[in-house]
């Protein structure tokens, strides 16, 4: 017989073991709660993102929305109802062009992408409000949103002067990729 196995267990040992189990349970619960909290995006946050002023945290929140099916659906619905204008996906012909497109026509605004003559990777993304569009309303646009490959992107717009706003972007910027994706959709608000 093994004498060690029959050694009586003290009350202190039992308490310690019990506390350890409780702590482990608390830690597990806390981790679970944290995951739940971080994945939840409130409607208020979504509306703020579309209608409120731009902040440095916006892209992080947009990434979070992109990875959450429900949030993406809700965000898209909010964008559709609050956007000043929308540019829908391009016709199939645009995607079969041998060269990268530099013009995305739309009903209310066109987008142009032009490389700098210095050829150092700087691009100009231009948003031009159509002559037929309600210029006064659209000229107040402050943010350009894009949805491409299930990802949402946003860029603050400079003042629209004479129906045109121009943004400077480096090569490889996600907005350039969105521009070149015929399936992408753009919104301004």
């Amino acid at each position, binding site marked *: 017989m093994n004498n060690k196995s029959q050694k009586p267990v003290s009350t202190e040992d039992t308490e310690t073991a019990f506390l350890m189990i409780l702590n482990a349970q608390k830690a597990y619960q806390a981790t679970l709660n944290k995951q739940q909290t971080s994945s939840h995006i409130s409607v208020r946050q979504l509306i703020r993102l579309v209608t409120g002023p731009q902040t440095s945290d916006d892209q992080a929140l947009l990434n979070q929305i992109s990875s959450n099916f429900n949030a993406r659906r809700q965000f898209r619905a909010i964008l559709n109802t609050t956007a000043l204008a929308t540019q829908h996906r391009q016709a199939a012909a645009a995607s079969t062009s041998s060269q990268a497109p530099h013009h995305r026509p739309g009903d209310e605004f066109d987008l*142009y992408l032009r490389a700098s003559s*210095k050829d150092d990777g*700087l691009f100009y993304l231009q948003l031009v409000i159509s002559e037929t569009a309600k210029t006064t309303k659209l000229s107040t646009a402050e943010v350009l949103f894009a949805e491409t490959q299930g990802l949402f992107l946003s860029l603050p717009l400079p*003042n629209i002067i004479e129906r*045109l706003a*121009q943004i*400077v972007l480096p090569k490889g910027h996600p907005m350039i990729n969105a521009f070149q994706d015929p399936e992408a959709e753009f919104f301004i608000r």
Partner: protein
Amino acid sequence: MSGYEVLIPTTRHAVKVISITAEAPDIRSVVCLNKTYQALPISAGYEQFVRRPTGIIEKLLGPSAYRVDVSAPITQGDSWQLGLALAHILKYNDEFVDHGGGTLIWASGEVDSQLRVNSVDHIATKIEASREILQSAKENGQRVIFLIAKENLGDLHSGIISGMTVFGVSSLAESCEAIGTKMPKQLTFPQASATPAKKRGKVKALAVLGSLVGLVGLLVFNVPFRSLNNSYQYEQAGQLRMLRMEMRDIRRQKNWVATNALYFFEVMYLSAKSKKLANAITIKINADADANEQSGCRDFNGQVINAGRLPSLSDNDCKVTFEVTSHADNKIRIWLAAIDRTSANTTLQLLKNGAEIAPGQQFFTPAATIKSANFDLIAAISERDDAVWRSWFDNLVAADSIEIANLEMDRLTSTGVGIFQARWRPYNELD
């Protein structure tokens, strides 16, 4: 070492022009922070500075869009215009370099559509912020040239400019001459589209006739009205220093029509406006408390001050405030000062206070103790921003001679600023 480097000073740091690239005409001109692809806030102003009809760079050099890369941010103002204009001209003449140049140009000034170089603020601060880079250039054997508007020559700090060449200039052509580069001739741009060959002869004859008529019209109507329009625009924008320069230039042109048009503009508009504004305020004395518990001060409580002379005051020290009410049609900015001129040599400023008030509104000055002595009350009133005329008012208040006071008064009233002046003299002088 050859070639020119260009520095654009700001109040925070000196900014070096790194490169200038002509872009396609569809692009809006942009000023970028080097290596960051960040468009600077002055880009919109730069686009206007470049592209016709407002811009001068396209008129001088041809292309209508450029990208300029600079070493550090320039966030506001227009003082970059002289530096960038020179950088463009040097680039055009193949004399611009971003490093290793034999000459470093430090330029600060505004350039208007007539290619005149106008004065800017904070020259001394900008020199201070450029100290390190200037010192380094000097040690590297570079020739350093300061280019500023003539009007700014008085703002130079004597310490920093030892061994450096300073030019006060009034035009872009003078700036080019100063640094030793060629000023490009302004390009002409065709207005009309191509005409069918059959009609060319007839059109040519009509064009000659039209040109003659147009020339006469230009001389008789356009020159004075363009100048007057500029003057009017400057007044509306509160650019009163520019307004005075424009009026001075019109007088120098010695164009009979322009001079007379200017005379009517001055008399019928600016002078009338100055007088109207001077009468658009009421100033009342409030003397609630007697300083040093002496009686008699309350006697003139609530008295209205009329332009010209103050009401009779007590011989004792009285602590008073002034209540200013506006009867103007629009919002006005007022600066008011009380001055003791007892001493013949020095002017003692008892009070200086300013406010922006809407029609019918009032403002109260802080309390000042008024002595029974020579005492003046001066107020300047304008509908325009006080960025320019405030310094003229300060000079008027601090004037220690009648000549200086008259000069400042002329600056103020000739640009449409109203002046309210009232004087009080002791009883013995009144008798």
